[in-house]
């Protein structure tokens, strides 16, 4: 419990300042989160779902925190100039954890839709935010959720009322910006009413090569018959550490696509927990990681089939080069009475070198007897026969490897339901494999 103490001290000393610079809805849960954190600390490797991650190590160093909410000068519109026609999204920026005040997306959101800073939303719609904030992220159950709930002061709030469809996807660009080693605790709450439809793209970037540590908790509530796509794209520096917990609750007949792509990073831990709470709910949970050098990507997923007639489809693919380390741990729980569940989980990985390592752990727990569930995991190398076949046709080895790796991850990109994004991803991934994306270059997706 060494790393914990400095945060316990920090919280005890600055609690008043943290609260003063946040909002009631967020402050209301801090005491409970603090008690849980004091009791449990950071998750150790003994906690099954954190088996492949030494959490404490990443929190041990000293990071600056901006608890007093000083304005960090940056103009994202300057830094992230789009020099080709953009993705035709509603584009917003978050700097560290603050909603950028001068956001000026092109176009208008439909009436009743709220998309703004979380602190601002908690002031304007306190009841709405209170109804949802912290309802999925259980601080007693998860150390990262507790930590984030203790320190989070702001973030983003998204609310789509019943039957409202967003014509354009919303794109949120998270920018990590600091001159010293820095910690950011960001919180996002998403609510879709009955029959609402929205697509949300979140791009994570680090502007500076200082040591960043970011924790992020996203809670998404998807109403009856609603349709929601969430694409998360990380493209940061080797000096960035990311802990992200995504919680999704789905009502009857809702359709959700979640796709997390790690293109370039330092150390990444993504946890996704989906609760299929209403009959006929459907989730597609996809992920992709391209890692080299000493990068580390750890994805944990948990799909809870609580009721009958729900479908989950899961596909994660990793390409690991150099000394990169990947982990995938995927749990599917089919509860008693969750009959007619259809669940499929696939994890495929390529280790391009002898030093690259992949850990994969599918876990299925099934307590219903009329279900269709399958899972599969493979770790392998590029197909030598295919490589030779291509070379015989005049494709040099390097190019042939690239084509194969590209084909390998393509399956994940095929599940993106935004055509323009798909195209950009193809270009971006090609650049990544060619080694032209050596560090975060800003939001290359919108360039």
């Amino acid at each position, binding site marked *: 419990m060494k790393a914990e103490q400095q945060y316990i001290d920090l919280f005890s000393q600055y609690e008043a300042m943290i609260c003063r610079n946040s909002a009631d809805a967020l402050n209301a849960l801090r005491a409970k989160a603090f008690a849980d954190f004091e009791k449990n600390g950071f998750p150790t490797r003994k906690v099954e779902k954190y088996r492949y991650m030494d959490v404490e190590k990443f929190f041990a160093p000293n990071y600056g925190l901006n608890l007093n909410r000083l304005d960090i000068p940056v103009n994202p519109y300057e830094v992230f100039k789009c020099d080709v026609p953009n993705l035709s999204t509603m584009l917003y920026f978050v700097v560290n954890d603050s909603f950028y005040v001068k956001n000026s997306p092109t176009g208008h959101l439909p009436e009743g839709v709220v998309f703004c800073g979380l602190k601002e939303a908690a002031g304007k719609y306190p009841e709405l935010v209170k109804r949802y904030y912290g309802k999925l992220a259980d601080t007693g159950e998860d150390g990262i959720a507790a930590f984030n709930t203790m320190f989070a002061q702001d973030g983003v709030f998204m609310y789509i009322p019943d039957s409202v469809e967003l014509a354009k996807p919303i794109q949120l660009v998270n920018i990590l910006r600091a001159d010293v080693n820095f910690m950011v605790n960001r919180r996002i709450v998403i609510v879709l009413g009955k029959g609402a439809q929205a697509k949300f793209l979140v791009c994570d970037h680090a502007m500076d090569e200082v040591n960043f540590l970011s924790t992020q908790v996203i809670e998404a509530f998807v109403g009856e018959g609603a349709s929601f796509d969430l694409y998360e794209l990380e493209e940061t520096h080797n000096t960035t550490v990311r802990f992200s917990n995504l919680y999704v609750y789905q009502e009857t007949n809702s359709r959700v696509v979640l796709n997390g792509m790690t293109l370039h990073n330092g150390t990444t831990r993504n946890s996704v927990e989906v609760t299929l709470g209403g009959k006929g709910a459907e989730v597609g949970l996809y992920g992709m990681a391209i890692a080299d050098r000493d990068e580390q990507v750890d994805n944990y997923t948990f799909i809870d089939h609580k009721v009958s007639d729900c479908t989950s489809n899961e596909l994660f693919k990793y390409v690991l080069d150099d000394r990169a380390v990947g982990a995938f741990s995927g749990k599917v729980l089919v509860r008693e009475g969750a009959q007619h569940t259809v669940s499929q989980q696939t994890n495929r990985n390529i280790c391009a070198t002898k030093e690259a390592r992949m850990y994969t752990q599918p876990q299925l727990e099934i307590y219903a007897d009329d279900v269709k569930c399958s899972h599969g995991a493979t770790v392998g190398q590029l*197909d030598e*026969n*295919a490589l*030779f*076949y*291509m*070379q*015989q*046709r*005049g*494709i*040099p*080895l390097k*190019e042939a490897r690239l*084509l*194969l790796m*590209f*084909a*390998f991850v*393509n*399956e994940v990109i095929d599940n993106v339901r935004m055509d323009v994004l798909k195209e950009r991803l193809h270009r971006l991934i090609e650049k990544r494999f060619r080694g032209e994306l050596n560090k975060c270059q800003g939001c290359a997706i919108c360039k």
Partner: protein
Amino acid sequence: MLEIKDLHATINGKEILKGINLTVKSGEVHAIMGPNGSGKSTLSNVLVGHPAYEVTKGTVTFDGKDLLSLSAADRSHEGLFLSFQYPVEIPGVSMVNFMRTAVNEQRKYRGLPALTASEFLKLMRKKREIVELDSKLANRSVNEGFSGGEKKRNEIFQMAMLEPKLSILDETDSGLDIDALRIVAEGVNKLKTPETSCIVITHYQRLLDYIKPDVVHVLYKGRIVKTAGPELALELEAKGYDWIKKELGE
């Protein structure tokens, strides 16, 4: 065009080729026959630079160049083509993307500009007709889910796209029905010019009914033990290999 001198090659330390000598001139068709395990496929693999084989002795010159010093891709760029006995399936790589990369890499090697998308598609359409390859197959992943016949037709289609100087057909007739055999063989004949040559590896006379060889060789235990005109293939079809083994004193 191709000159092989005293070629020895091993796989996993086991010697398969034990001194091959073979000369193929421009415009010629050579057939290589021989019992199973005599080294026919090894010879074709060694020529195109398969990494599993090691050349321990001998030389191969191709159009005056030292073939063995070139990478597999550069051997292709120089005009060497192998129609695989077992074409490889490559899931996720489309035929279009695969062929465009191959054609443009060849053009780059020869100092030519890359084809534009429309030039390339036009070329594909034209060449597809030679082997009556369905346009739907061109949009699929390389060889994935192709029938045996479609795979072999696809090999000849690729040959048409790359216009090699020397093509090696490794048991291209295996697994083909009569109609597919005719289409494939006619495709090969349409691509034939006085400047291009062909090595046909086969067990059966029937392919040679369509692709007429100028010279027939028998490969046995890693050496060429007999060379004659097209009548040799007919004789083998009628009598098998025993008489040759007897001639060798076995």
